[in-house]
């Protein structure tokens, strides 16, 4: 059941009505209906993996209590590592086992040894990377005594399985979400309206921008050998907007949906393509994951405390792990590595926190410099996305090589029966809308909201891609 499907359009109003009209008595009934809805939502993909979700919930819930009840640090550490081990074990088996087995076999093969690795070829349970990290943050917070262990299983289950965030985040923190599920929610008209606006805008991003870009990006990437420089550059740009529209669109729908139930989720995107440097990009892109790695990996590794070498080492570690988190493929690891390399000059010059404020624009040279920096950052990011999109390293390198050596810039007719430049206008309009609304969560609320909603609905119907249905990219992670 995808957020952009008819089944979700039926599911959501039913849950909404049950939540506010039938089971609104107290927070336990509210939470119970959301848990049942969440389990149903998850089982729509594959009911068998529901057991994994329930197991993960039970494991984290009870180990957190055991950890809190432990009198010695040794025991606390034992419960922490057993929980981390089992959680990452599941993730490892389902997501990474085949990659390691195959890579090891390839390595042996390069030394002349023939092996026949046993591959599991398991289906990846949807959302496993998200809810595993979700649960890990909780037990680590308990270990460091940042929060106390949750004793109410219903509340904790909802924290883990809450359907708007279950399959592709945002990766929530117990400190943010648990307090909200521990009290009865009262209907808030303003919040609910904000939610609806955010859902509509999220759908526009997904169905109009991401899915349109996908048809062009696929046509270019799948035939990159026959493409010229212009098509390859545009293909990379289209993919950059595809992944942004796809993932931030998903996040908007998730946040908007959650607001309908009176629960705020963590902001996941903050107009990342308007970043003035790579450090700012990573403060604006997939914020819940970036901050997770910062809090639960970078800082425990020593963060910035141990001098420049330590900073550089830790930065490379979190970027590589972040790349690997996305998938078991060398392309993701290299994507992470490239971002670390982009980050390095800023780190060495201590400029990684220089663009913290809002983007100020005016008719002056400094604004020109800002625009140049934004375009440069976007260019670097798009270049790195080529590795993320490519099926393998050969394709990524071949793509970039062709892009910088072909030197033909004429319009090309693509396999999606469109010319390579045709989507540019739509992309530019989208960029314009985002630019002029960058101080808001979404562009539909505020003045003339009805007119803007009408245009968004028209755009959804007329410009959306429906016949060539695309799943959300991040569901595979």
């Amino acid at each position, binding site marked *: 059941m995808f957020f952009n499907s008819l089944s979700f359009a039926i599911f959501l109003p039913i849950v909404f009505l049950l939540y*506010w009209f039938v089971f609104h008595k107290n927070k336990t009934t509210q939470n119970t209906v959301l848990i049942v809805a969440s389990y149903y939502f998850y089982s729509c993909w594959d009911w068998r993996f529901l057991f994994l979700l329930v197991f993960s919930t039970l494991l984290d819930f009870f180990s957190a209590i055991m950890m809190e009840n432990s009198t010695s640090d040794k025991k606390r550490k034992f419960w922490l590592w057993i929980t981390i081990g089992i959680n990452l074990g599941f993730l490892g088996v389902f997501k990474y086992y085949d990659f390691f087995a195959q890579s090891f076999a390839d390595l042996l093969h390069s030394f002349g040894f023939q092996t026949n690795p046993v591959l599991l070829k398991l289906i990846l349970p949807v959302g496993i990377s998200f809810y595993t990290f979700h649960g890990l943050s909780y037990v680590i917070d308990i270990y460091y005594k940042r929060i106390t262990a949750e004793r109410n299983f219903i509340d904790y289950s909802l924290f883990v399985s809450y359907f708007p965030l279950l399959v592709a985040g945002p990766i929530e923190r117990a400190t943010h979400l648990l307090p909200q599920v521990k009290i009865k929610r009262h*209907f808030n*008209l303003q919040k*609910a*309206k904000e939610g*609806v606006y955010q859902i*509509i805008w999220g759908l526009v991003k997904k169905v109009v921008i991401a899915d349109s870009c996908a048809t062009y990006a696929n046509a270019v990437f799948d035939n990159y050998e026959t493409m010229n420089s212009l098509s390859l550059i545009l293909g990379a740009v289209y993919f950059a907007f595809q992944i942004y529209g796809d993932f931030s669109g998903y996040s908007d729908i998730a946040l908007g949906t959650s607001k309908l139930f009176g629960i705020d989720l963590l902001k996941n995107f903050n107009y990342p393509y308007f970043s003035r440097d790579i450090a700012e990009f990573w403060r604006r892109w997939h914020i819940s994951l970036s901050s997770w790695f910062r809090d639960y990996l970078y800082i425990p590794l020593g963060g910035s405390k141990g001098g420049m070498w330590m900073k550089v080492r830790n930065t490379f570690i979190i970027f590589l792990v972040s790349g690997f988190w996305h998938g078991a493929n060398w392309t993701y690891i290299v994507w992470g590595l490239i971002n670390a390399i982009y980050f390095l000059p800023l780190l060495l010059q201590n400029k990684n926190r220089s663009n913290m404020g809002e983007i100020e624009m005016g008719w002056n040279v400094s604004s020109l410099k800002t625009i140049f920096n934004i375009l440069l950052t976007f260019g670097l990011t798009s270049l790195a996305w080529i590795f993320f999109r490519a099926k393998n390293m050969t394709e990524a390198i071949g793509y970039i090589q062709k892009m910088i050596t072909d030197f033909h810039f004429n319009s090309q007719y693509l396999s999606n*029966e*469109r010319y390579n430049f*045709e989507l540019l206008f739509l992309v530019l309009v989208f960029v314009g809308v985002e630019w002029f609304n960058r101080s808001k969560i979404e562009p539909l609320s505020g003045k003339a909201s*009805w007119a803007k*909603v*009408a245009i968004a*609905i*028209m755009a959804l*119907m*007329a*410009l*959306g*891609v*429906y*016949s*060539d249905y695309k799943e959300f990219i991040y569901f595979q992670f």
Partner: protein
Amino acid sequence: MKQFLLFIGKILLLLLLSAFALDFIYTTVLAQSETRNKVENVMNSKPQNYDVIILGTSRANNHFVSELFEKEGLRTFNYGMSGAHLFETSLLLKLMVERGWHIKSILLETDLNLSNEKRDDGTFGRFMPFMHSSKTITEHFKNESDFTALYYVPFYRYIQFDAKVGFRAWYKTLINEPTNILHHNGYYPLGYNPKANMKNNIENLVPLRNRYFEEIKQICKANNINLITVTTPMCTNVKGMDYFKKVKAMYPEIKEYEHIVEGDEYFSSCGHLNDKGARLYTKKIIDDLFKK
């Protein structure tokens, strides 16, 4: 909560009004066009006289060179459509007859397309702008599982087939941007592709006693149209060529021409002749079937 439900109601009303408005705008523009594809060309046509009308899939579209028929003094148009199934071919013929076309002969490609009776979404979508204005189309589509939604839900038909009758098609029609579909009297020549995959496997295909083929035969009989049915060439490296024997056994009237052109240099892909091959093939067809 009451205010919120009212707010949602307004959004749903806006959605409905937008759907009606867009449906009207799209239909007005797309249903008046006649030069961007073969369906609209037939739909908006006046009565015509043809010696030969060619029908079928891309294997008709790319194989029968109309110009060679014209050279023999036969007024010809190739209405073969890439991807079309006999489901749409039969409908196109019904529409031609309905519009008072006088056709002496139909040259119908009947080979791989005999293996299914389903619709082809790409071609099916082209009929959407005319769904409400043509009873023939409505009748032909009424047994489709999504007929009710396509017919009654405003704008759904354009959403469902947006690749063919979506915003891009609407915009290009609005600005009168021509296509090359109707060039060369409907024949679409293919080039030689040295990298083409010159092998195919059709072992899983089974010819059916196809109801739409039967329908075409009946229409031709009722309207005194001479129906000529032929198979068209495949490249040499095809697994399952006995399919054509099964076709012949089921329909003895279908003439076998699948081996008439041989050699990869005459093909653009395994199932499609290039222009050079198409000319050889068409010449043979004309010599055998139209000169006697």
